[in-house]
C-alpha cells in the first residue's frame, strides 16, 4: 500500500533522534531529559519498523517489542530515582543534582 521510500522514514528517524539528543543536552529539568531519551528510543523504533517492512522480516518488529519493554523498565526505575533525589534535594534541576560528586 505504502510506496514512501525508506530513506524518508530513516531521515525522519534521524530528525527525531537529533531533537531528542539536543533535548538531553540543553534542558535542565531531569524529567524533560528523560522524555527526550524516550524520544530517541522512539526514533530508533521507527527505523526498526521501517526496515522490517522493507526487508519483509518480522525481526525488526520483535526488536521494537523488546525496546518498548526496556523503555518501560527504564522509565519506572528512572522516575523512582528522580523521586528519591527530589526528596533529598527538593529539586529536579540536573545542575544541582550532584551528590555523586566525590
Amino acid at each position, binding site marked *: 500500500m505504502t*510506496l514512501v521510500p525508506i530513506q524518508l522514514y530513516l531521515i525522519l528517524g534521524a530528525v527525531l533522534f537529533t531533537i531528542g539528543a539536543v533535548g538531553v543536552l540543553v534542558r535542565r529539568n531531569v524529567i*524533560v531529559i528523560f522524555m527526550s531519551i524516550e524520544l530517541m528510543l*522512539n526514533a530508533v523504533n521507527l527505523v526498526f519498523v521501517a526496515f522490517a517492512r522493507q526487508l519483509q522480516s518480522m525481526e525488526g*518488529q520483535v526488536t521494537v517489542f523488546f525496546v518498548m519493554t526496556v523503555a518501560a523498565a527504564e522509565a519506572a526505575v528512572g522516575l523512582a530515582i528522580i*523521586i*528519591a533525589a527530589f526528596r533529598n534535594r527538593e529539586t529536579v534541576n540536573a545542575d544541582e543534582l550532584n551528590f555523586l560528586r566525590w
Partner: protein
Amino acid sequence: MIVLGLGLLVMLMILSLAGVVVVGGIDLAGLNLGHVVFALQASLMILSALGVIVNRSPIRSALSLVVTLFLLAVMFVSLDAHLVAMLQVIVYAGAIMVLFLFVIMLLNLHEDRPAMVRPGVRGFAGFVGTLFFLGAVHFVMHPLGAAPGAATVPAGFGTIEQLAEQLFTRSLLAFEVTSILLLVAIVGAVVLAKRKLA
C-alpha cells in the same frame, strides 16, 4: 504564537513534500496519497517533538510527547506493524506517559526558569546536533540510493500471530530475560521510591 506555529507547519509540510519529490525521484504527477499523508504526519511529528524540548512547563512537554507517540503509532500502522502500533498506544502513550505525568503531578513541578542551559552550551548542543544529523543523513543516503518501499507485504505481516511466532521461537531466551528485567525493575522502583526501608 498560533499563527507562527501554523506558518511553520505549512512550511514544514511544503519542505517535506519537496523532500519526497527530490529524494524519491518522483514526478509530481505521480504523487499519491501515501506521500501526502507521510508529509503531514512527519511535519506534525517534528513539530510536536520540538514542543517536547522547547516548552518551559514539564506538563506541556509530556503532552507534546504523547502527541508524538500517537503520530508514531499511526505511522506504524501505515508500515504494516499493527501489533506494534497497538502496543505503542497502550504501553507508551498510555502507561509510560501516565507515569511521567503522575510524577510531574506528585512533585508539583511548575515552569522551569531558565528552562535551558547557558546560551554558550546551547549553541554547542545545536552544533553537535547539526553535525550528528548531517552524519546520519549522509549515512542514510550514501549506500541505499533511492529504493522504493515494497508495494505489498506477505499476508498476515505484522499481526499478533506472526510476531508471537517469532517471539516464542527465535527470541525465546530474550523474552524470558525480559521478564526477569521487568521483575528487577519493579523491585528496584519500589525500593528506590520508598521513604524508609523497614
